[in-house]
C-alpha cells in the first residue's frame, strides 16, 4: 500500500535524523562530558577492531542461538501445557517466576561452577527467553476467539484439535511477539554468562577486557554488534508477525462471556494445590543441587538457607543485614515497577498514536536490551548521578521492553470494528484509546504487568550493584566477594519469593477485573 511505503520512508528518515542528532551530540561532547561517543567514532572503532570480532561474535551467536531455540521450544511446549491445564499453571507458577526473576548476577557464577563449556551460556540464554515466550504463548492461546473454538467443539473436535486448529494459530502473533522479546534476552543472557564463565571468546568477554580501558566507543561498538544480532532476529519476527496479524484479527467482536473456569472446588483441594505449588520450587531447588553434585559450601539447599537465616549462630547478623538491605530496596522497587510499566504503556500507545516515532525508537529500545548494563552504567552515572533517578532509569530499561511488546501486541489485535465505533462519532484518537483500545487489550496489559513485576526487582538490584551501593543488589555483590554463599542464596531466594508475591497480587487483581468485564484471564 502507498501509505505503508511512505511510512517506511518516514521511519528511515526519522532514523537518519536520530543518527545525525546523536552524531552532533557526540561530536560536541554535550552528553556526559563527551562520554557518549558519536556514531562515526563507533564505526571507525568497529573497523579498527574488525579482526577481533569474528571469534567473539561466533561464540556469542552460537550460545545465544542454541539457548534461544532450546528456551523457546520448552517455553512454547510449557505454554501449551499451562494454557490447557490451569492446575499445572498454578503448580508451576513458583518455578516459572523463579526462572525469570533469578538474578543473572547470582546464577551466572553458579552455572559456571556446575556446568561446563558452553552450557552455562546456553542455559542463561535459554532462561532469559523461557518466561517471556511461555507467557506470550499462554496469553495467545487463552485469548483465542471462543466462537471459533465452539465450531471445532460442535464438530466433535478434541481439545487437541481445538488447540491445533484455533488456539495455536491465533496465538501465533502473540508467540511471535514473545520471540521478539526473547531475541535480545538470549543475546544478553549469553553475554552475562560470559562474565561469570571466564572463557576467552564471546562479546561479553571482549566487553570485560575493554571495560577497563575508558574507551566508550569500543564499548558501544560491542553493544551495537550485540544489538544487531538481536535486532535482526527481532526484525525477522516483527515482519513475520506483521504478515500474520491482519488475518488473525477477528472480523467482528467476540462478545461471548467466558464460562467460569472450573475452580478446584473443595477448600481442601485448593489448599493442597497451594501447598504443592509452594513446595514444588523448593523441592526442585533441592533436587537440582543434589543432582549437580556441587560442593555444599557453594550450593545451598533450601534447608541450608533456612539454617543460615534462622538457626545458625550468625543468623541474627545475617537477618539484620538482609532486612536493612531490603528496607533500602523495596520502596524504590515499587516506584520502578510503576515507572517501567508506565513507560511501556506510553510507548505502546505511541505505536497507535504515532507509529513512526515509535518505530524510530525501536533501535534505541533494542540497544537498552542488549547492551550490558555494566558497560552502560558509567555513562548513565555521568548523566544522572547515582541517586534515585539513575535507579529508576535502569529499572525502566530492564522492565519496559517485554511489557511494551506485549502491550503493543494486545493493542494491535483489537478488531477494527470496535475501533470504528468511536471514530464514526467523531471521537479523537485519545477517545478511541480510552473507550476501546485500552479496555480491549486489558488482558495484555495485565500480562505486561506480570512480566514487569519480577523484572523491576532485578532492575533495582542491578542499579544498586553497579551504581548506588545500597540494598540487596549491593549485598549480593559483596557477599559474592566474601564467598558468603549462604547470603547469596538467601538474597536470591528472597528476591524470587518477593517476585512471586507481587506476581500473585497482580494475578488476583487481574482475575477480579477481567471477570467483572467478562473477559478471559490467561492466568
Amino acid at each position, binding site marked *: 500500500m502507498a501509505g505503508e511505503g511512505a511510512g517506511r520512508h518516514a521511519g528511515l528518515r526519522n532514523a537518519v535524523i536520530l543518527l545525525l542528532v546523536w552524531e552532533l551530540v557526540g561530536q560536541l561532547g554535550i552528553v556526559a*562530558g*563527551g*562520554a557518549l561517543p558519536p556514531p562515526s567514532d563507533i564505526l571507525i572503532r568497529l573497523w579498527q*577492531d574488525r579482526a*577481533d570480532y569474528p*571469534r*567473539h561474535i561466533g561464540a556469542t551467536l552460537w550460545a545465544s542461538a542454541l539457548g534461544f531455540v532450546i528456551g523457546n521450544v520448552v517455553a512454547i511446549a510449557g505454554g501449551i501445557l499451562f494454557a490447557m491445564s490451569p492446575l499445572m499453571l498454578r503448580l508451576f507458577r513458583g518455578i516459572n517466576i523463579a526462572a525469570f526473576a533469578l538474578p543473572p*548476577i547470582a546464577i551466572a*557464577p553458579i552455572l*559456571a*561452577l*556446575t556446568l*561446563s563449556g558452553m552450557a552455562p551460556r546456553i542455559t542463561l540464554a535459554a532462561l532469559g527467553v523461557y518466561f517471556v515466550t511461555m507467557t506470550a504463548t499462554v496469553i495467545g492461546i487463552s485469548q483465542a476467539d471462543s466462537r471459533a473454538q465452539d465450531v471445532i467443539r460442535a464438530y466433535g473436535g478434541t481439545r487437541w484439535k481445538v488447540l491445533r486448529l484455533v488456539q495455536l494459530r491465533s496465538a501465533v502473533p502473540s508467540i511471535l511477539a514473545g520471540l521478539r522479546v526473547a531475541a535480545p534476552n538470549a543475546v544478553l543472557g549469553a553475554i552475562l554468562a*560470559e*562474565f*561469570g*564463565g*571466564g*572463557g*576467552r*571468546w564471546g562479546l561479553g*568477554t*571482549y*566487553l*570485560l*577486557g*575493554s*571495560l*577497563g*580501558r*575508558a*574507551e566508550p566507543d569500543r*564499548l558501544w561498538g560491542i553493544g551495537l554488534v550485540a544489538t544487531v544480532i538481536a535486532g535482526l532476529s527481532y526484525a525477522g519476527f516483527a515482519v513475520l508477525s506483521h504478515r500474520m496479524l491482519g488475518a488473525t484479527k477477528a472480523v467482528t467482536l467476540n462478545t461471548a462471556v467466558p464460562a467460569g473456569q472450573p475452580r478446584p472446588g473443595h477448600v481442601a483441594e485448593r489448599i493442597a494445590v497451594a501447598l504443592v505449588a509452594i513446595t514444588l520450587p523448593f523441592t526442585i531447588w533441592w533436587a537440582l543441587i543434589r543432582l549437580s553434585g*556441587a*560442593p555444599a*559450601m*557453594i550450593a545451598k539447599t533450601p534447608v541450608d538457607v533456612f539454617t543460615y537465616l534462622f538457626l545458625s549462630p*550468625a543468623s541474627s547478623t545475617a537477618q539484620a543485614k538482609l532486612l536493612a538491605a531490603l528496607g533500602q530496596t523495596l520502596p524504590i522497587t515499587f516506584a520502578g515497577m510503576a515507572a517501567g510499566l508506565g513507560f511501556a504503556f506510553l510507548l505502546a500507545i505511541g505505536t497507535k498514536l504515532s507509529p513512526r516515532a515509535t518505530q524510530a525508537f525501536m533501535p534505541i529500545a533494542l540497544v537498552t536490551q542488549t547492551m550490558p548494563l*555494566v*558497560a552502560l*552504567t*558509567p*555513562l548513565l*552515572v*555521568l548523566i544522572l548521578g*547515582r541517586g534515585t533517578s539513575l535507579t529508576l532509569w535502569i529499572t525502566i530499561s530492564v522492565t519496559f521492553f517485554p511489557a511494551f511488546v506485549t502491550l503493543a501486541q494486545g493493542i494491535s489485535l483489537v478488531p477494527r470494528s470496535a475501533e470504528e465505533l468511536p471514530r464514526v462519532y467523531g471521537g479523537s484518537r485519545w477517545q478511541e484509546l480510552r473507550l476501546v483500545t485500552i479496555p480491549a487489550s486489558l488482558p495484555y496489559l495485565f500480562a505486561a504487568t506480570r512480566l514487569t513485576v519480577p523484572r523491576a526487582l532485578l532492575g533495582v538490584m542491578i542499579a544498586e*550493584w*553497579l*551504581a*548506588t*551501593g545500597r540494598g540487596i543488589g*549491593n549485598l549480593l*555483590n*559483596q557477599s*559474592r*566477594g*566474601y*564467598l*558468603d*554463599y549462604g547470603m547469596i542464596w538467601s538474597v536470591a531466594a528472597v528476591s524470587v519469593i518477593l517476585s512471586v508475591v507481587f506476581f500473585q497480587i497482580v494475578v488476583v487483581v487481574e482475575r477480579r477485573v477481567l471477570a467483572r468485564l467478562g473477559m478471559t484471564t490467561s492466568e
Partner: protein
Amino acid sequence: ATSPLTMQAAWINDAEFAGYFLGLDRGYFTDAGLDLEYLSGGPDVIPESTIIAGRADLALTTPDTTIKAITEQGAPFKIIGAQYQKNPIGIVSLAKNPINEPKDLIGKTLAVPPVNVISVEAMLKMNGIDPSQVNIVPYAYDPTPLVKGEIDASLDFTTNVPFTIKQAGEDATSFLLYDFGYTIYNDTVVVTEQVLAEKRDLLVAWLAASRKAWAENLADPSVWPPKFAETHFAGTGRSIENELYFNAAQKPLMESAEGYFALTGDGIEKCLSALGEVGIVGSADMFDTSLLAEI
C-alpha cells in the same frame, strides 16, 4: 609423562599473568612434569569457588577474601605462595585533582568494588580517618567516571589504570594501600587441603616452574608481552602497550629477596595484622610455606 593440573587465574588475560603464559609457551610446566590447564578469570569469576567446586587445583586469589572464607565459612584453604608481595591495589586519581595520601580523600567521592569496601575502610581508619568522611560508591572497573570527574578517585590496580587514564588524555597519580598500612599480598596461590595432600609434588613443581617463568619475564619486562599478542592476549580488547606498562609496573611489587612467590614470616605477619584491622582474624597456619621451601 605429565600430570594434569588446572589453575584458575584471577582476571582476564593480561600482563598480570604473563609469567604463566611464558611458562606455558616455553614448556616450563611440561618440563616440570605438568600438563597445565589455565583458566582465565573475570569480574564475576570467584577463583576460590572454582577450587571448592573441584574445577581447578589452584587459584590466584585476593587474601582478604580467602582468609575471610577460611574463618567465616570454614573453607579448607591453604595459601602456598603469593605472586604479589605488595598488593598492587591503590587509590588512583587524576593529576589535576590529585589524591596523594589517605587524608586527601576526606570529602571526596571514591569508587570501590563492593568487595573491597572493608579494606578501604580499614586503611582509612589506620590513617585516622573516619570512613563516613569519604563518599564511597560502587566501582565496576570502568575508569570513565574518573576521567570525566564524576568521581575523584577509584580503587583499582595501580599497575594498570594509570596507563588507561593517560590514554584517555589525563595524567594519573596513585598510591598503594600497602604503603599506608594495608599491607597484604595479592594473587595469593591457594589450594584446598585435599589437593595439597594429594598433589603436593605437582604444586611444588608448579611453583618452581612459575618462579622460573616469572624471573625470565621480569628480567626485561618489555620482551614478552608482544610475543603473546596473537595468542594469550588475542581478542582481549587490550593493547600491547598497556601490557608493557603493566609488566613493568608490577615488577617491584613482585620481587622479593627470597624469590618470586615468597611467603616470609614478616610478610605473613604484616598481611595478617592488616586483615585483623578489618576484622578478618587469620592465623599463620593458613599459610603453608613448606612447598616453597622445597623448590
